């Protein structure tokens, strides 16, 4: 069954790195094991597995609900059955690069909310900090346990056509997707019996234990009461909140379950108020405390920030970490690494133009067909302009918008996201992917789960991997 047509018509994209094929159209060695499996499996069988995967996601409740006409429809995050495979060497570099980056970013946040040496030394302009919507004055001078602000992060990487991994953004606020890393692996175990061990794929299942240990380490209490704060069942990541709470054995709470009394946080339980020591919050800064931030928020808890500043409760991630993953600050991360660590960045930044600078704005405008322009405070793939597919009119409109407040925009050259084989309509086809590994930081350093979430742009030729825009995901295998 050597030729089952699975591999025919694999149209590699021009000047794009493919994860499975090298430039001479030979298989990369890390894919050998899985290719052998594919060669011995008929397309019918693979299609069955694809259906099985869908059913499994549904029956396990790995879904989010879309409401329309009073009717809730359960949706799954599309899953491609072909895993994305990364070698041990590649992973080593990714791991070292993320650790270095997080170390610098954490020092940066501490610096910004305390002495601000980096501004005084002229590395980063102060106005950039103070105009950033994620900068929280409320955090100035607040002492956080072990000086760790970013306990949980999910740095987005892409592989450019030079084969190198670049950092796309450092999600340092409340990154989501880790439950899909875990769930995708559980599905692979059932779809491909025996194949994971045969390929020496590293396990990711320790993540919840590790997360629990990091959260526990934040409290001086030997047996702290740790809770996960969710915005509630209508949040699209609610599945993830329930899963993490269940896997860690901690309570899943909503804002209305908590109350602050004398600067301590309590949960309302059937036998009275019970003190809460650590809160893993999946609620954004802005909604955390109606007394200090968005006063209309019902998702947070009134008085929680005051309790936090007194050190009576721990909030993870610390409020205000968004200052370090703002798109305008991103440009300075390589400088931070040099400034704080005196090291060369292991992972590269994507060349980024700050449209607030007239020369860069001019350059970007001239080369707009090769650029993607983003708002500095945007996320989820919204509010972007992809120069190569935009009409003249779109471009004009967008640039008009830019001219109103150019410092709120950045531009990057359109990236050649690497492609990986996906099983689509009975054949393997290349689709653009990125990679989000999940890192946990605490007093004992940074741990990165050997895996991550590989997001796929399932639309042919698309570069947008966001789930809100037709993206899907893949299991991510890191080989020993």
């Amino acid at each position, binding site marked *: 069954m050597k030729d089952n047509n699975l591999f025919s018509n694999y149209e590699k994209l021009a000047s794009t790195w493919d994860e499975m094929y090298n430039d001479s159209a030979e298989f990369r060695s890390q894919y050998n094991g899985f290719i052998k499996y594919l060669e011995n499996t008929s397309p019918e069988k693979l299609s069955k597995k694809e259906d099985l995967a869908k059913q499994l996601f*549904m*029956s*396990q*409740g790995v879904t989010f609900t879309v409401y329309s006409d*009073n*009717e*809730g429809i*359960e949706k799954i995050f599309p899953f491609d059955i072909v895993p994305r495979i990364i070698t041990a060497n590649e992973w080593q570099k990714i791991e070292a690069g993320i650790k270095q980056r997080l170390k610098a970013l954490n020092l940066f946040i501490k610096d910004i909310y305390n002495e601000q040496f980096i501004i005084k030394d002229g590395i980063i302009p102060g106005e950039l900090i103070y105009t950033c919507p994620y900068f929280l004055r409320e955090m100035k001078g607040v002492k956080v346990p072990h000086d760790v602000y970013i306990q949980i992060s999910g740095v987005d990487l892409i592989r450019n056509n030079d084969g190198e991994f670049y950092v796309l953004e450092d999600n340092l606020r409340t990154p989501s997707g880790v439950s899909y890393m875990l769930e995708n692996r559980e599905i692979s175990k059932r779809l491909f019996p025996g194949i994971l061990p045969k390929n020496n794929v590293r396990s990711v299942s320790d993540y919840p234990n590790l997360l629990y240990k990091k959260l526990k380490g934040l409290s001086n209490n030997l047996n702290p009461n740790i809770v996960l704060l969710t915005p509630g*069942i209508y949040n699209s990541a*609610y599945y993830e909140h*329930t*899963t993490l*709470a*269940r896997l860690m*054995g*901690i*309570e*899943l*709470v*909503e804002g*209305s*379950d908590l109350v602050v009394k004398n600067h301590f946080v309590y*949960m*309302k*339980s*059937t*036998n*009275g*108020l019970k003190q809460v020591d650590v809160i893993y919050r999946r609620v954004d800064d802005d909604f955390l405390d109606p007394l200090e931030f968005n006063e209309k928020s019902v998702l947070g808890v009134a008085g929680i920030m005051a309790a936090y500043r007194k050190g009576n409760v721990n909030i993870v991630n610390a409020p205000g970490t968004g200052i370090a993953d703002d798109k305008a600050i991103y440009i300075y991360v390589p400088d931070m690494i040099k400034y704080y660590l005196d090291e060369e960045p292991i992972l590269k930044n994507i060349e980024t133009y700050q449209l607030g600078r007239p020369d860069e704005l001019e350059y970007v405008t001239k080369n707009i067909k090769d650029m993607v322009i983003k708002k500095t405070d945007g996320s989820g793939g919204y509010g972007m302009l992809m120069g190569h597919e935009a009409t003249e009119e779109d471009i004009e409109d967008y640039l008009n918008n830019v001219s109103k407040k150019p410092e709120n925009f950045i531009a990057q050259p359109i990236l050649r996201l690497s492609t990986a084989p996906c099983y689509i309509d009975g054949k393997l086809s290349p689709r653009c992917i990125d990679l989000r590994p999940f890192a946990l930081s605490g007093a004992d350093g940074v741990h990165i789960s050997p895996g991550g979430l590989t997001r796929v742009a399932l639309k042919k030729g698309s570069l947008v991997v966001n789930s809100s825009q037709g993206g899907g995901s893949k299991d991510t295998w890191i080989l020993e």
Partner: protein
Amino acid sequence: MLSRVANNLIWLDRYMERGSGILSLLKVNYYANQDSPELFSWTPVIKNFTDYHNEYYTEDALECIDFMVFNTDNYNSILNIVTKARENARSVQEHISRELWLCINNYYLYLTDKQLRQKLREEDPVQFLDDLRKHHLIYNGTADVTQERGTSYYFMNVGKFLERVNIIADFTSIKLDEIANTSDSLEKSFYWKNLLFSIGGYQLYLKTHKSTFNQDHVITMVFQDKLFPRSVYYCVNKLSRHITRLIETNELAKNNLEFLIGKLESSIKYTTIENINDQGLNNFIQNIKEDISNISTNINAVYNSK
């Protein structure tokens, strides 16, 4: 335990129990209605389980079952009930067994499958209802063998038995209304028999009293039998047991609750059929319903306080 979680657990089981009761009633009424539609109409069924605003009534069996199972405007349609049960379960996943969550999630997916509605129209409606009822049996069995005996389990059982008492009381009231409309003793016996079918007690009745229909025997069995799991006394007894455990572990405040449940339990236990007949079965049921409602309000107070 979080008060919200306790509340969700109670309602999870209340909804599942209600669904199970409605499905039983639909099945039994379907059979009876095919025999004698003039005696067993669908109107009382719809009336009992819809709110005051409902204006929809039908005497077409399939239309009625469709309305009671699928109609999202019907507050107590099985689809609405299971959706709500699932939402409750979903938000307390760390408190219920994984198996139980998967069970209810699968029930929800089964119910929302687009083909299912067609099945009701084109295939055997009894099989259709039985297939749905099976999910409730699996739910109860799964809870029994996977859920640890602790606070969550007690709260779930409180919900289950509160609801079950309500359902038995409601079913009996429906039958009493129907019985009041006839003076024919044979017809009356049909209704009593139908009540036993609806709560699944016919087989036990036959074993105990053979095929002679005596109204007093039926009432005694439905309200006072100690071993029949769908008698009012059995449910109140269980309810009392689980409430007591929650009081012992300080999950519920003693206050009125201990008194109310104790009073209800004795009022059923230490009464005779003569006594019930003297005050009238309708009154007797009304008192039980009031007590159950008071108990329920007292437990809800847990959620709303602090």
